[in-house]
C-alpha cells in the first residue's frame, strides 16, 4: 500500500483507502475535481494530495546518472567541504584542542553539566565568538540564543564582548606590528546587536520556535550558531505522557539536525543533569534519558575535578575521548591557570 508513504493527514489517508486508491499509479490519471468529488473533500485538498503523490512519483522517474539519489554527495566531495568549514572557538585553547578546533558547524553539540559549572557562560561565549570576523579566524556570523530558564545576563554578555574585542586588538597588534595598525571597528554594542534572543516559557513555545526558525533562518542567512539554554528545562516537570515526550523530543532533535545541515550552522544544546539509580549506586547522567542521548552528534560533559572545571568528550564521530581543563574568568571562558595543564587522552 504505497499510500502509507505519503505525508498526508490520517483522515485524508483513510478516505483514499476506503475509496480504493491504494497505490500511487491510481492517483496518476485522475483530475483534482474528480478526486474531490469522490473523496468528498474540498478541491484544494484534493489538489494538495495529487501534488504530494506526483512529487513522490516524480522522484522515481528522474534518474540522474551522476547521483544515485537526489541530494546525495560523495564522501570525497564532503571531505573537501569539511576542510573548508570553520569552527567556533571557545576562547580556551585546551578546550579547542580536544574539540578539533572548536564547535563544528553542521552538527548538533550537546553540552551538559551540574549547575554552576559554566554552561550558560560557555553558551554566551560561543554566541560572542561566532561573531569574530573572518580576518581573525572566526566565522563572522550572527547568533540565536534561545533562553528557557532566564539565565542569560546582558551585562555579562557585554563584559564578555568587551574582553573579546580587547583580545582581538591585542592579537592584531601582536601580529600586524609590521604593517599599519588597522583599528578594530567593532564595539561591544555591535556584538550584542548580532545576538537574536528568544525567551520561551513553555514546551509548546519551544516547539513552535523551532518550527519558526526555518523561516527565520531563510531570512537571516548569516546566523551561524543556535544556542539553546537549556533544552530540557520545560520537558522535565509536569509531563504526564512519557510517550508523547519522547515523540516530541525526537521530532525536535530531527528538526534541529535538519536546520544545522541545511543552513550550515552549529547547534549547541545545553542540558542539565539528573541522578540515575543503576545497580544500587547513584550516578549522574544527563537529563531526558537515554532516548535523548542518541539524538545529538557530539556530546561534551562538564564536571568538577577537585577545584578545577573539566570538559570531557563523551560522544563524537571523529574525535577521540579526551578531557581538558578550563576556567571561567571575568573575561569569559579561558584556559585553566593551574600549573599541571595536560590534556588527558583516554
Amino acid at each position: 500500500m504505497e499510500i502509507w508513504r505519503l505525508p498526508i493527514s490520517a483522515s485524508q489517508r483513510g478516505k483514499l483507502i476506503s475509496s480504493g486508491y491504494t497505490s500511487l499509479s491510481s492517483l496518476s490519471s485522475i483530475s483534482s475535481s474528480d478526486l474531490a468529488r469522490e473523496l468528498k473533500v474540498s478541491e484544494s485538498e484534493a489538489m494538495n494530495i495529487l501534488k504530494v503523490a506526483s512529487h513522490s512519483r516524480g522522484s522515481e522517474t528522474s534518474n540522474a546518472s551522476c547521483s544515485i539519489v537526489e541530494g546525495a554527495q560523495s564522501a570525497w566531495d564532503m571531505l573537501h567541504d569539511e576542510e573548508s568549514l570553520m569552527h567556533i572557538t571557545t576562547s580556551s585553547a585546551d578546550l579547542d584542542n580536544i574539540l578539533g578546533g572548536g564547535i563544528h558547524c553542521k552538527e548538533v553539540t550537546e553540552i551538559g553539566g551540574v549547575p554552576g559549572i559554566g554552561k550558560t557562560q560557555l553558551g554566551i561565549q560561543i554566541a560572542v565568538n561566532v561573531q569574530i570576523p573572518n580576518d581573525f579566524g572566526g566565522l563572522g556570523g550572527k547568533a540565536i540564543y534561545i533562553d528557557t530558564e532566564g539565565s542569560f545576563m546582558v551585562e555579562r554578555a557585554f563584559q564578555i564582548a568587551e574582553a573579546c574585542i580587547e583580545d582581538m586588538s591585542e592579537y592584531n597588534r601582536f601580529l600586524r606590528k609590521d604593517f599599519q595598525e588597522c583599528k578594530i571597528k567593532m564595539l561591544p554594542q555591535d556584538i550584542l546587536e548580532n545576538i537574536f534572543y528568544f525567551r520561551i516559557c513553555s514546551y509548546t513555545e519551544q516547539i513552535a520556535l523551532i518550527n519558526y526558525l526555518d523561516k527565520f533562518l531563510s531570512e537571516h542567512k548569516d546566523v551561524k550558531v543556535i544556542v539553546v539554554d537549556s533544552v530540557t528545562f520545560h520537558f522535565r516537570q509536569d509531563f504526564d505522557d512519557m510517550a508523547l515526550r519522547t515523540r516530541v523530543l525526537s521530532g525536535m532533535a530531527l528538526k534541529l539536525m535538519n536546520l544545522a545541515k541545511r543552513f550550515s550552522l552549529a547547534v549547541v544544546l545545553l542540558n542539565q543533569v539528573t541522578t540515575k539509580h543503576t545497580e544500587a549506586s547513584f550516578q549522574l547522567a544527563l537529563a531526558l534519558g537515554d532516548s535523548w542521548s542518541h539524538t545529538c552528534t557530539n556530546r561534551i560533559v562538564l564536571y568538577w575535578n577537585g577545584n578545577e572545571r573539566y570538559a570531557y568528550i563523551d560522544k563524537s564521530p571523529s574525535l577521540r575521548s579526551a578531557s581538558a581543563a578550563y576556567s571561567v574568568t571575568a573575561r569569559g571562558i579561558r584556559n585553566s591557570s593551574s600549573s599541571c595543564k595536560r590534556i588527558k587522552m583516554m
Partner: protein
Amino acid sequence: MARLANLETEYPVLDSTVRNFCASHGIFSVEDFLIHDLYMLAAFAEQNDSSERLKEGIAQVLSIIDDMHQPWLNGMELLEDAKRNKHVFPTGIQGIDLLLGDGIHVGQLTELVGPSSSGKTQVCLRTASNVARNHMVLYLDTGNSFSPQRIAYFLGKTISPSSAQAKNQFLQKVMSNISCHSVFDIFAMFDVLHQLESYLRCQDGRGGCQMRLLIVDSISSLISPVLGSSSTLGRALMTSAGYLLKKLAHQHNLAVLVSFARVSSVLIINHTVGGEGGSSKPALGDSWKCIPHSRLFLSCDRGSNTYNVSILRHPSMASGKAARFVI
C-alpha cells in the same frame, strides 16, 4: 494494486455491473478483493441476475492477481542464487568478522543495537570504507554523524605507505564510491528508498561498479517521532520500512546495515511491552525485533576503550557468542 475502475480499459469484462456488485460488498480495488471471502462472494454472485458476467469478472480479477506474485523458486535455484550473488562482505574490524564468520551477508538486514556512544556509527563508517574499495555504498545519515575524515583515516591505515599523490588518488577513487544523504524524517527515507529501487533496477542490467551496501544510521531516530501515538500509523511505517529494506536486500543483492538506539528504561514507547524494572530493551519494542535477519549488540568499555559485541540473532551463527574489538 489498481482500482477496479481503472482496470476497465484493459479488461472490458470488469464493466459497471461487476463494479457495482463489488462496490455493494465494499470492494473498490484489487487489494480489497483479496481481503474478502471468495466463496461468499461467488455465492452472492450466483444469486444475482447477471451471474455469468459476475463470475467472469471475478475470474478475471483472480487471474490479474495470479500474475502479480513472485515466481516460485526451488531449493537448487536458491542455492545457485546464493552461491552466485549472496556474498559476504568483511567489515574490516577483526573481532566482528571473526564473530560473524567473515562479515555481513548480502541479501540480509543486519542491525547494530546498543546504548549511546557504543561504537555503532564507527562500525558503520568502518564497514563503508571497507566495502567501498570495490563496490558502491549509500549511507543514509539521520544525525549528521557521517565523518569523511574518519573514512579517510580508516583508508589511510590500510594502504601501504606510498607517495602522497598515489594515496590521494586511492582516497579519491574509494571515497567517490560512497554517497551520503541526510534524511530527517521517515517519509523522506521512503522517498530515497524508492529512488534507490529504480536506480537498482537499472543497475541490474549494467556491469561495472555496482551498489552493494546500504547503511541507515540510525533508523530508530526516524521512527521514534511517529511511534506510540494512539494511531497505528507509526507501527505500520516501521514494519513497512523494515520490509522494504529486506526486499531491496534480497532482490537487488544488497547488504543492508542499520544502527539502532537502545533505551534502558521501563517507560518504553511501545505500549505492549511491560518490561521488568530497569531492564534494558531496544527502543521500539518487540515489533521491530523480528524484522532484521541478524542483530548485534554493541557496548563500550569506557575504561579500556574497547568495544564488546555479541550476537543477539543470526541465521547461521549461535546467538550469545561475544567478542571484543578496538577501533
